[in-house]
């Protein structure tokens, strides 16, 4: 902070603690701040101080007044800093892909569940890459996905699906590692659901980096359904995780 002559201007502060080591805590502009104290300056709680800023550090260089005032008056203290951070992260899959039998399909990036005509059972996967683990250490408070069942494949009526948690964050060359199971979206052909809740523990596994994908999979190959991948619908399989720390 400078005056029109570009000379530093001292600010007033109120000492909240005595000097310990080279610092004390003082109230500057209503905010409790750790400041460096001049070596030859003794500070008592309640002392009125003059402080100067050098770069990103405050320095107390003098006490003023004949004795410690009762308080620094005037103005209102700003709200306390927020102690808990919360956020909502939108994570679009970096790849959607179906594994049929022992191979990954390259003719489509749509996500299939089940088997059609004895051609091999599908695992329809969405891989989320690195983004979820960018808040490692946070607590998941909710998670949901957006899905669309394509207007092709299987019967028109709504069909049960099974969602699996996938360990890998990127598509492996071999089969994906499937872990937990929950009921998946139940949609008729052509239907979109922009809020399919998934277990909070799954969201937590994504944040922790121990899981990185989701999949549709029925071990018995039925029912057969096709859900949109990234190519058919851009927001397909978008995952939203709410978190706090």
């Amino acid at each position: 902070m400078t005056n029109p002559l570009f000379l530093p201007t001292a600010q007033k502060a109120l000492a909240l603690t005595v000097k310990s080591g080279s610092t004390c805590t003082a109230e500057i502009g209503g905010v409790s701040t750790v400041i460096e104290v001049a070596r030859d300056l003794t500070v008592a709680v309640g002392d009125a101080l003059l402080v100067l800023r050098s770069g990103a550090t405050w320095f107390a260089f003098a006490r003023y007044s004949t004795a410690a005032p009762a308080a620094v008056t005037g103005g209102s203290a700003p709200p306390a800093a927020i102690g808990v951070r919360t956020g909502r992260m939108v994570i679009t899959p970096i790849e959607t892909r179906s594994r049929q039998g022992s191979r990954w399909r390259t003719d489509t990036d749509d996500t299939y569940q089940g088997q059609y005509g004895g051609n091999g059972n599908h695992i329809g996967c969405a891989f989320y890459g690195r983004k979820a683990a960018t808040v490692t250490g946070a607590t998941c408070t909710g998670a949901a996905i957006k899905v669309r069942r394509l207007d092709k494949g299987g019967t028109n009526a709504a069909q049960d699906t099974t969602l699996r948690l996938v360990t890998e964050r990127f598509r492996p060359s071999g089969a994906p590692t499937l872990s937990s199971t929950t009921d998946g979206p139940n949609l008729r052909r052509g239907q979109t659901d922009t809020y399919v809740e998934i277990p909070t523990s799954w969201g937590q596994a994504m944040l922790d980096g121990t899981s990185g994908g989701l999949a549709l999979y029925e071990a018995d190959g039925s029912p057969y359904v096709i859900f949109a991948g990234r190519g058919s619908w851009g927001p397909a399989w978008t995952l939203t995780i709410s978190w706090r720390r």
Partner: protein
Amino acid sequence: MIEITDIAAASLLRGNQRRYLRVESWLDETLLDDDIPVQAGVEEVDRSSNVPERLTLTVPRIAKRTLDGIRYNYTPGETNSPLAANGQFLRVLVGLGIGNDQTEWLTRGWYVITESKVNGDQINVQAGGLLWLIQEARLVNPLQPSGTFKSTIQSLVEPALTVEFDAVLSDRSVPASVNYDDDRLNALNATLAAWPAAAEVTSEGFLYVTTTTDPSTVSLELSAGVGGTVIEATGTSSRDGVYNAVVAQGTLADGGLVRGVMYDTTGPKRSGGPFNPLPVPLYFDSPLITTQAQADAAARSRLDTLRRTTSQEFDVEMVPHPALQAGDRIEVDGVPYIVEQLSLPLTAGGGSMKLRVRSL
């Protein structure tokens, strides 16, 4: 470089590449539009800017919406209009035709809409990279970090941006009595400079903090020639803002001062060379620097960054390559360069892609 498959990379080398564009609009977690009809658009990136990424789109005022098939008025009048600047984000994807009716989609990035203006039957949309959120959100209260460099950076940018740290970075404690006043983006940059580290917003939409060294992997090899890539030296040369030495100053635990000094000893503007027989130094001071080694590392890192202003620059004009990003290392006829600026047309008929690269 945005990761693409070998098939997509091969398709980019073919003359008649098929490209598609998809722009989504999001407000928080709500999808407002999954395919905004874009008439023209360009993505521009300049690594020297506070917010490197800029997006400019031209959208018809009234057009059929793919989300529900109705004719929709894109005028940004309502709170949740897809093109309003009330927190709406645009996700830009470029599709590459890879044969057999297959398209590989690359996410170019996430942008926050900064302005939308109706201009006759069109709407002109301006959007910026996600660091825009950090730049405009000055600190309400001074920030006094009490943890480490990592937690300080998280405190500065979360939840607007989440952060991934390169595993090679070594975290350390932030000294007591550090106090960031009001400029959040300056505080972020000051923390990065003192660490030293560099940060970029990835196409997936998070902040990636890594070392300041240039990449060693070549992302793209080009050949200059008639009808293909054109490369020529830029016509600009200036002494303004050029430094060939850095003095990084910090404070030891006992209160003593510590200084790290590094000189640029190579290139046309090297210290002690014809540019000026005396060094032209840049000073910076940070309480986050508390040892001689940290001061030396910060000075060296800052000097590496400054070389971007002293290296010789060239303009490159080439066929659009939607996977290329600023900061990538490319080679033209075997000569290595770093991409400092790029301009990528997003629609067919948008012309060629333009790069400004610097020599290594």
